[in-house]
């Protein structure tokens, strides 16, 4: 109920002007036409999509490798995987604060490793700021997705591997012909989680870049926060939020449809 009622309200509020103090007043489509002609809004939607796609592309291979590795029987596995999953315990706030300190151009690591970072002002240009956000996202979310894949990989019947090695298939071929196809369901679950998470990235943007330089890393969730809670234009904020919900729902549905997930009798676990 706490999710549905506000969702209806957010729709209603997107057609009003409201400063957070007085009663909301209806103003028809004014918020929507304003946003349609707002260059920052258009840019923020693009940026959100770029960050989301980059997140999925970077996190998926790493999580699959880590998850498959953690499902196996290596030496030191318990100790290593205990360390691997530490980012899970940290709040997004703590993670962002730590990385901001580490990457500080004057007192952070870049000041000591100039051969690697150049002038070290990573938050100073759009491309490197986006790279930092993607990297911190990788750091923050990979452990959770690796856990999902670990569960998926454990559920693959060992018989398949035995049969494959009798047929003379090597490690790499086994990975591509057994492990990956068997992880299909897990992959869909994980990608949907990444998509929704990526679309709504907020804490890291607020703390690491504050949307800057300029509005270069202002994604939609951050723009919504700015409009509503910094400029007290709650109507516009609601409209952006509604766009976010619709896009997130459509993309999730598309992934489910395109992958045929809804028609499959789930063989392993989903979510």
């Amino acid at each position: 109920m706490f999710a549905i009622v506000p969702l209806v309200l957010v729709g209603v509020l997107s057609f009003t002007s409201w400063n957070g103090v007085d009663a909301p007043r209806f103003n028809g489509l004014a918020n929507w036409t304003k946003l349609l002609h707002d260059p920052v809004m258009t840019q923020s939607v693009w940026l959100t999509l770029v960050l989301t796609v980059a997140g999925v592309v970077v996190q998926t291979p790493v999580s699959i490798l880590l998850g498959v590795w953690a499902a196996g029987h290596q030496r030191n596995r318990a100790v290593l995987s205990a360390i691997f999953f530490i980012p899970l315990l940290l709040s997004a706030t703590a993670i962002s604060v730590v990385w901001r300190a580490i990457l500080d151009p004057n007192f952070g690591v870049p000041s000591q490793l100039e051969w690697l970072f150049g002038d070290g002002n990573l938050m100073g240009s759009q491309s490197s700021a986006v790279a930092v956000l993607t990297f911190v996202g990788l750091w923050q979310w990979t452990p959770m997705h690796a856990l999902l894949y670990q569960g998926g990989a454990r559920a693959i019947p060992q018989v398949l591997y035995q049969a494959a090695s009798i047929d003379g298939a090597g490690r790499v071929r086994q990975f591509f012909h057994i492990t990956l196809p068997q992880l299909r369901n897990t992959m869909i679950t994980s990608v949907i989680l990444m998509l929704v998470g990526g679309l709504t990235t907020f804490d890291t943007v607020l703390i690491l870049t504050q949307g800057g330089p300029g509005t270069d890393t202002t994604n939609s969730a951050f723009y919504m926060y700015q409009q509503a809670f910094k400029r007290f234009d709650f109507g516009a904020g609601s409209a952006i939020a509604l766009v976010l919900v619709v896009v997130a729902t459509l993309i999730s549905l598309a992934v489910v449809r395109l992958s045929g997930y809804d028609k499959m009798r789930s063989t392993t676990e989903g979510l």
Partner: protein
Amino acid sequence: MRRRPNHLAGLGSLVWLALVGFPLYVLLISTFRTRANYSSQGPLTFPSQLTLQNYLDDFSNGFGQDFLNTLLVTVSVVAIVLLVVPPLAYAIVRARGRTIGTVFRIFLLGLAIPAQAVIVPMFYVISKAGLYDNLLGVILPTAAFCLPVCTLVLTGAMRDITSELYEAMAVDGATPWRVFWQLVLPLSKGGLSSVVVFAALQAWNGFLFPLILTQSESTKVITLGLYNFQTEHGVDVPGLLSAVVLSMLPIFIVYLFARRALVQGLMGVGGK
């Protein structure tokens, strides 16, 4: 059959170890530096002199209050979740009616809705209810956003209880209430601990709701404290980082002792 080690994934895991280990090393070592040492020597060299002053400063900067607030929020959220979710999941698993199916589907819809999307109306509702800048105004939405995932996980666990067990209890003439207490709850212990882990982590690490719904010192939680610390005393990096360490310490202690349960819990819920 013995499996050979997977070298490719093993290499990947070593790279990951460096990626996780290096920042944690920088984080820890920086908290024991004096502020002057941090700005003159930078974060990488090993400090000539170690100090605990940063941690002491955090407590005089109100960390204790933030800590108690966060603890209160976390305990309350877990309590609400434990009160609501088990009966709900039980009803969903056992009842045959159409209403309960509809309720469940609405719940699942809640899974897909990100908190940011509804934060504006949440702010509206909470202010109207007079709960703005009140910890209760943080506790209720946080718990509400935990409910869908928690219910899903627990229904999963309860589905695994075989129907023979229910029938056996029914033959013995047990009331639904007794079945719930003596059969369902003990057998879904694993699911319950996952739910507790998930709810506690969400509440402990929550940031958006406190950011939007509170403002004064007396209702500040740890994550918000870190954020404010950064915006107000951005130059005191050792002080900030020691506050980060303090904020993760309780979870880390639990992690050390109950790693298996915790990881299994996170595996079960997976969600963000």
